[in-house]
């Protein structure tokens, strides 16, 4: 079995035995997605950089206790989510400096104004960005990270029914924003 075909779980097993090459391989496989997940959670790429690094150091430390009940990607997203929330709680609102604020989606404009110069795809992307964090996170986890309802529940530590409720309202808001911008898709 070469490195390319080794499963994430096999690699975590190697990490548990102190194999640094294995943790670097997992880093290469998952870092970009973890980084993006945290960046969109916090609105700060600086925080995403720190937290994504911490996630993989945590992987190094916690690998011996990984029981394999969830996918490695789900496990890492859960660690990232926990660390992001912890850091946000610690910093509360004063972490947003001028540089970071520029990266936070600007929801001051109405969808109508924004979409005047945009096509539907660009508008949709902006509406996704402008969703409330709890809704956008569910959208990101399903569409970008490929997580199931159950896995999203694990990452966010919420019941499956809540995942579905958030998905319903997230998609409903996207539909309403599109409708307001002149793109009626027939639902809701």
């Amino acid at each position, binding site marked *: 079995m070469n490195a390319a075909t080794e499963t994430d779980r096999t690699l975590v097993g190697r990490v548990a035995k*102190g194999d*640094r090459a294995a*943790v*670097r391989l997992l*880093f*290469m496989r998952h*870092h*970009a*997605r973890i*980084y*993006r997940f945290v*960046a*969109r959670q916090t609105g700060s*790429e600086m925080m*995403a*950089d720190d937290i*994504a*690094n911490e996630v*993989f*150091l945590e992987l*190094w*430390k916690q690998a011996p206790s990984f029981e394999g009940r969830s996918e490695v990607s789900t496990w890492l997203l859960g660690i990232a989510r926990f660390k992001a929330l912890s850091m946000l709680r610690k910093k509360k609102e004063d972490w947003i400096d001028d540089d970071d604020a520029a990266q936070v989606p600007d929801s001051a404009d109405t969808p109508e104004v924004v979409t005047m110069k945009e096509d*539907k*795809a660009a508008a*949709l*992307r902006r*509406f*996704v*960005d402008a969703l409330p964090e709890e809704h956008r996170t569910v*959208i*990101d986890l*399903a*569409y*970008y990270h*490929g*997580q*199931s*309802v159950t*896995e999203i529940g694990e990452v966010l530590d919420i019941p499956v029914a809540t995942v*579905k409720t958030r*998905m*319903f309202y997230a*998609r409903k808001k*996207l*539909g309403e924003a599109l409708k307001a911008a002149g793109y009626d*898709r*027939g*639902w*809701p």
Partner: protein
Amino acid sequence: MSAAEKMSRRDEMETLLPFYLNGSLEGAELEAVEEWLATDPAAMAALGEAEAEFSGTAAANEAIRPPADALSRFAKALDAEAGPVRAPAGQSWLAKVFGRVTAMPAGVAWAAAAALLALVLVQSFEQPGGKGNDFEVAGAQDDLAKLPFALVKFKPDAKVADIAAFLGQNGLKIAGGPTADGVFHLAIPASTAADYDRLVGLVAAQPFADTVIQGRKPVDGG
């Protein structure tokens, strides 16, 4: 089915569509979505809208670019967390050098092998009687150290009797070794480069020879 029930079903299906698209839906929910897609005229349009959301979300995420030096910084942080890398147990310094020499081009390997042998001999002669834990050097009267040589590693399943018979038939002698990892210094009693090449080639061709590196070779006309 009432309008309210129909709407409720539509809401449920719309909620499940993202999971249908990412392939994580299964069981009764998967069957329900597939049945809806097959029977409701509005379903395929809804699927197209969900696909657009899929693309938009992917684009929004992919627009975020992680720093290019993330891996190197993580590697440093990992070293700080875990401490210095330990060498694998049971591998001697000589074995490591031998391993590197085997990976070198032939021309470079000769010089490296000569340097390696010099170190081996110095170390062995410093020990009383020329005996040590890792290797054994033949008697000084044989003056084997002055002979042309090659470094040889035998296969794990090689039989001592076969090796001894071959060496005896060809006038070859083991002048040192083995190291902890089975590297022998083989004296090659050749007076010409051609003779040396023939003998070393003969050693390399034996089924019990794993690795053979050329060492000091006779200089013709010298």
